[in-house]
């Protein structure tokens, strides 16, 4: 069996402790949460941290709660809890959409939202979900906290705004009326990474789309924010024709590469199809919510 290279291990008991441990560990220090991205890479020797800080005991980072005008999710919240959360299902059903197609249920028992976001794999679903929902994240360092929007969170492939000796602690999602959201994904097989996926959210006001959030997975080097399509939708009535037009922009604005999942033209095509579908479902959900 593949085995990781040697490293030191430390189990953190507080967020402050994590930061201090990361500082001690220097450049070779990494945080481990669910471990389902990091450990396979370590076994392949693609990642060779010399110092691992285990944050799984930090129950204070495991929560989903509504706090005024925001939903706040602790970074250590596991996929299974995101999937099962009734609060999220009510506010942002996009989470349940995504969580039922992320890896498999056993992996979802361990993997965390913070780990997913920090891995910053362009194929990863939750980055697109959070981008579409216009979320921001809280990053803690030795000198305190800072809040970073999802747009600024992804710096590049596998790279985020979380710096050395910093820890992602929370995801904040604004709660505003008239919201509907949905996630659409095509994969080669259950549990596989996406060939392409779209996260979409719309906020309806008086029968028109006041704002939209759309992000794509697996069709670029990073999660792709579809700003042109978002602008297209703003102020317009939700129709299938409009969503198809947004889909065309999605096809144009993504930048997939060919790989074992498919060629570029197919991925562009999927980006369009899934964007139109996700918007239609998001809009229908927003309208249902309006009625309720």
């Amino acid at each position, binding site marked *: 069996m593949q085995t990781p290279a040697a490293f030191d291990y430390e189990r953190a008991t507080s967020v402050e402790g994590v930061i201090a441990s990361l500082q001690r560990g220097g450049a070779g220090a990494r945080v481990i949460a669910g471990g389902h991205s990091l450990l396979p890479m370590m*076994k392949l020797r693609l990642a060779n941290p010399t110092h691992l800080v285990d944050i799984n005991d930090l129950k204070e980072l495991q929560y989903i709660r509504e706090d005024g005008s925001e939903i706040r999710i602790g970074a250590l919240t596991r996929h299974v809890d995101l999937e099962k959360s009734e609060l999220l299902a009510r506010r942002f059903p996009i989470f349940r959409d995504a969580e039922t197609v992320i890896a498999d249920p056993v992996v979802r028992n361990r993997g965390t939202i913070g780990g997913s976001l920090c891995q910053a794999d362009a194929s990863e679903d939750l980055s697109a979900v959070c981008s579409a929902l216009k979320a921001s994240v809280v990053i803690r360092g030795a000198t305190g906290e800072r809040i970073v929007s999802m747009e600024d969170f992804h710096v590049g492939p596998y790279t985020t705004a979380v710096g050395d000796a910093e820890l992602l602690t929370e995801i904040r999602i604004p709660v505003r009326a008239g919201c509907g959201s949905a996630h659409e994904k095509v994969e080669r097989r259950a549990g596989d990474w996406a060939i392409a996926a779209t996260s979409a959210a719309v906020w309806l006001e008086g029968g028109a789309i006041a704002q939209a959030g759309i992000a794509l997975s697996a069709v670029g080097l990073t999660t792709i924010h579809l700003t042109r399509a978002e602008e297209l939708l703003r102020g317009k009535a939700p129709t299938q024709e409009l969503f198809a037009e947004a889909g065309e922009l999605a096809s144009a604005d993504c930048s997939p590469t060919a790989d074992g999942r498919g060629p570029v033209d197919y991925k562009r095509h999927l980006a369009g199809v899934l964007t139109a579908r996700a918007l239609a479902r998001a809009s229908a959900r927003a309208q249902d919510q309006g009625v309720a």
Partner: protein
Amino acid sequence: MNVTIDINGETVSREIEPRLLLVHFIRDTPGLTGTHWGCDTSNCGACVVLLDGSPVKSCTMLAAMAEGHEIRTVESLERDGDLDPVQQGFHELHALQCGFCTPGMMMTARGLLDENPDPTEAEIRTAISGGICRCTGYKNIVAAIRWAADHEAAAKQGVSA
């Protein structure tokens, strides 16, 4: 480093390298070789054990991370000579052939039934979708888990009645 883990109700303690994978700790230290491994990438589910009651893939967890937690393996399913209904169901409905995926499948099934005692076929298929079986085509595994659910429900009714 020294690690102490509760495995099947027994306290197991050993000096290990921090990089030791949980699956190796379980197989080497108490010698519980019923937990298998079939891939390196957490795709096959042969290594599934219960961590505090939830199915997890023990090839993608460090032994050190399990300290202070309760691990249950396939060897714990039979109690005082009584097979777990999941074990019985697998035997009755021919849900195993080479037997290699079986411990992982059964522990996943045990975790499912503990949480959802009356799963639909679709829920069962989803629950075991993190495991690969090369022999059975899953049909009899799905039926066996449903068999176990029915027999557990009947047994509970019997007790209350």
